[in-house]
């Protein structure tokens, strides 16, 4: 396995960190993960694709919202504890105000068919964004010590367990996780 290569760029300052996470969060309708991948990997290049998958993997096994955990980790990596909390604030503050304002107005919104239609359309796009993010990360498995066929096989098992069989994540993740980690351990 190649060493984790260094990302070409990094946040310039705490305010750069705050604004970047704030803008990503505000673009995230139905989930922010797809936006984070687009912005931090493809545009700002603060993370390589491999680093993104790594950070997300760690967030995934920890309790708590994945994007929030990722924000903390990325902020901490660049500016220590201050960076972690600045990234967290960037991700949560403004959207929190918006969502509470919406909650206050919800009764009027909900009854209008145009509004519920728009929400359905946005939901469909949000699903497409997440699927596209997964597809774009599949090529990172080529550099994985497991090798591409085994990597794709494990990804497929995970997909079937969660999307088709709808098994609970608290069982599937440790189960398949132990399998994947054990195989990787033997091959390293």
């Amino acid at each position, binding site marked *: 396995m190649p060493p984790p290569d260094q990302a070409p760029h990094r946040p310039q300052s705490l305010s750069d960190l705050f604004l970047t996470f704030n803008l990503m969060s505000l673009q995230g309708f*139905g989930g922010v993960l797809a936006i984070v991948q687009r912005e931090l990997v493809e545009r700002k290049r603060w993370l390589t694709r491999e680093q993104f998958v790594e950070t997300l993997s760690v967030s995934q096994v920890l*309790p708590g919202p994945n994007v929030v955990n990722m924000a903390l980790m990325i902020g901490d990596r660049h500016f220590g504890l201050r960076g972690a909390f600045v990234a967290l604030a960037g991700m*949560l503050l403004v959207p929190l105000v918006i969502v509470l304002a919406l909650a206050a107005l919800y009764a009027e919104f909900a009854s209008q068919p145009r509004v519920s239609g728009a929400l359905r359309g946005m939901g*469909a796009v949000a699903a497409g964004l997440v699927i596209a993010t997964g597809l774009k990360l599949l090529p990172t498995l080529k550099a994985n010590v497991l090798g591409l066929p085994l*990597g794709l096989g494990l990804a497929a098992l995970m997909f079937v*367990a969660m999307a088709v069989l709808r098994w609970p994540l*608290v069982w599937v*993740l440790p189960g398949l996780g132990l*399998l994947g980690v054990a195989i990787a351990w033997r091959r390293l």
Partner: protein
Amino acid sequence: MSPALTSAELWALFGQFFLLSFLAVGGAIATTPEMHRYLVTEHGWLTDAQFTASVAIAQAAPGPNVLFVAVMGWNVAGPLGALATMCGSLIPSTALSLWATRWGHRRRETRGVRAFTSGMAPLTIGLLLATGWVLAGPAVGHAGALLLVATTVIVMTRTRISPMWMVAAGASAGALGLA
């Protein structure tokens, strides 16, 4: 709509979300059944409709989905309720994330950490695809919505267009009754 909660009840609300957050592997949304039992069935602080609406509002708004936790707290007890549920949900995961990222980063060249990141990577990607699939569930049976899902996947994998344009297109198509 919001019954006044005593400070003991607010602390109980905080404590419940604090405990639940340890179970929230894969996101807070995984613990919604337990939140429903606590807020609706056990305490009657929210009606069924308020509970469902709290989740729907947060999903329609920009930002991380975890904000639905704040909406629930708000609907139970206003600003203090939102503070109780958000702090309860975020303090444990924040502390654990910071600890884990530092621990792992110091040891990133060790065999154990490398085995972990390599072994977990395919599962992380598989889980993303599964999440997208589950989110696309409501689109099944609606040709317009399915077309939106497919178009988004193609545009996002083939071009560098900002996702915002796709969200705007989805909202417009839906408002016109096409989704």
